[in-house]
């Protein structure tokens, strides 16, 4: 039983990181119907910038909490700038092009970012400085650390904040209007370009936080880390219903739990026929099943094809 609880905790922590990244996919898709494949790389850049800021600052003797805060803020700022630039340079000129063009551009941007990161930060794995003390707590026979609780709590807070932003603020209303119909929103006096830029900036800020969380949780960062994370988060967004904010959160958490339980139990359930090397397969099996059985996702609504 405690093993089941432990796997559930493992899955929830992993899932809340997926959810944060999935939000970036889903927000952009909701407004532009564009799958921003460079989003995973933005997460990676967030982790890299945070580490690049953190390591020299730790030598100066500043309090650890302050250093961590500065590093996260630097990562958020860098990713916001990056997200804005990507949209401005790579997607805006193609806004009226066929939908395939920006999709291919997105893949291109992702490759450019990976290689740029490789040139700047090198091919090696960069270790996260051991500044977070890891107290373990017993919880229903399972073990949970402060960092894990912080990751889940912070993710939930951010998600609540995002829902508030989208549902209750002026910007949020403009975003929803743009998502429904760009032309009509424009006629109503909404500055569509600003709204789209804001969407990319907010999504990238979430990615930056997720990037720092991932590198703190696993203790390392690597120029390639955004690729798989991006694909998983994309699957999570599709699972929840892409374009739907609550769906991205639900999809992320579900995917994390499915992966943890799947990898943990598949060996025992199949008598060793299938092993835990299939861990990564679960996310993509879920993606395929959703696309086949319920293309609109768990919370997505079947929308009529827009003209």
């Amino acid at each position: 039983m405690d093993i089941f609880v432990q796997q559930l905790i493992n899955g929830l922590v992993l899932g809340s990181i997926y959810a944060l990244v999935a939000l970036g996919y889903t927000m952009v898709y909701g407004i532009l119907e564009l799958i921003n494949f460079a989003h995973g790389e933005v997460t990676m850049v967030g982790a890299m910038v945070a580490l690049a800021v953190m390591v020299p600052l730790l030598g100066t003797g500043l309090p650890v909490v302050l250093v961590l805060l500065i590093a996260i803020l630097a990562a958020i700022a860098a990713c916001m700038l990056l997200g804005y630039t990507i949209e401005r340079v790579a997607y805006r000129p193609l806004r009226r092009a066929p939908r395939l063009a920006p999709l291919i551009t997105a893949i291109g941007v992702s490759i450019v970012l990976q290689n740029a990161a490789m040139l700047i930060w090198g091919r090696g794995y960069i270790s996260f400085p051991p500044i977070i003390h890891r107290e373990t707590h017993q919880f229903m026979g399972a073990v949970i650390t402060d960092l894990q609780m912080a990751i889940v709590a912070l993710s939930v807070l951010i998600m609540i904040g995002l829902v508030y932003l989208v549902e209750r603020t002026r910007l949020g209303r403009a975003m929803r209007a743009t998502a429904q119909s760009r032309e009509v929103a424009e006629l109503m006096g909404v500055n569509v370009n600003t709204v789209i830029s804001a969407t990319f900036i907010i999504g990238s800020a979430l990615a930056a936080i997720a990037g720092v969380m991932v590198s703190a949780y696993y203790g390392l960062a690597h120029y390639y880390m955004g690729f798989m994370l991006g694909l998983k988060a994309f699957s999570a967004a599709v699972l929840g219903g892409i374009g739907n904010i609550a769906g991205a959160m639900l999809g992320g958490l579900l995917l994390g739990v499915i992966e943890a339980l799947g990898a943990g139990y598949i060996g025992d359930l199949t008598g060793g026929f299938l092993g835990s090397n299939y861990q990564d397969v679960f996310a993509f099996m879920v993606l395929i099943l959703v696309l086949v059985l319920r293309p609109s996702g768990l919370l997505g609504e079947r929308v009529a094809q827009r003209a």
Partner: protein
Amino acid sequence: MRLGYLGLSAATILLTGLLTGCGQDKTTASGEEVIRIGSVAPLTGAQSHIGKDNDNGARLAIDEANAKGLVLGGKPVKLELVSEDDAADPKTATTVAQKLVDEGVKAVIGHLNSGTTIPASKIYHDNGIPQVSPSATATAYTAQGYNTAFRVMANDAQQGKVLGDYAVTKLGARKVAIIDDRTAYGQGLADEVEKAVKASGGTVVDREYTSDKATDFTAILTSIKAKEPDLIFFGGMDPQAGPMAQQMKRLDMHAQFLGGDGMQNLNFLKLAGADADGVIASSPGLPLDSMPGGEDFKKRFEARYGPIQLYAPYAYDAVNVVIAAMKKADSADPAKFILDLPKTDMQGVTGPLRFDAKGDIAGGSVTLYQAKDGAWTKLETVKSGQ
């Protein structure tokens, strides 16, 4: 037309120039025959420091042999080392291997990595050139049945056997869980460990898998935890082993963490941080201060090239194995002295040098290290196959 003709003649001249440099047995000014021996290692890129170290080790052996004077078939000969750079890249490795063959080398010392040694070994074999690798450890290298492939370092199978044995008999582990990263190296090593654990009377309670790109091991570690092993073995490299060590501590697991040479390095200590403490990992070969001729070799080597990085003593021994076989055959003809290579029986800097039927070193040493306060400390050296 005129241009075409000019181009053609230029090409002819160039080609003639190239050809005269190839495949010819050169002689020195004093009339000694020159025998070329190839040395291949990554001389550029991330591993260049280790590659240059191998190259220097080989060079020292060549220079010492020349200083002593070598007579083959009644005539004095001079050895010449031809260094090539494979950049640790399998494709480059086959290109430089062909180049060495074309240049008429009589033997090759190298390559440094398993991934480059294996594809290159086919080219040497097809051309009948004996190859002695100082540092490639993948079992596949000598499992191809090539009579030209030799190595002077313990291979992964020998290492796995030592590790599995050590886990049960020395560390007292009865229940062992094994994880591997599904690469040729990780899986091969883990399979050997599993066999050795069972042979020594231990039980393998769980076998889990990950990939060489994964960072999350909490799910597999949790299911391992449920089986309550005394020891967890990981066949893989440091980028996975580092976070794995951290996640074990995070899950409150107290089983001994054991690994192979893929994680017995500084990067693992960096990635695992404080959680590296107590981890045991092996490395083929033995530390310099434990080598029978280590102290003396170190003096001679460092007087010329500076500090030893890693495998230089093995490259040095590899050259001496070749020279000894040439002396015994009294010929530098690969077809002749290759018959004497398997009969090698000599004392090298790194220990006794004898080959088994496959060309692997017989009774190669494997050394176990334990991580403590951000450094690896030597536990003990075990001879494989004993």
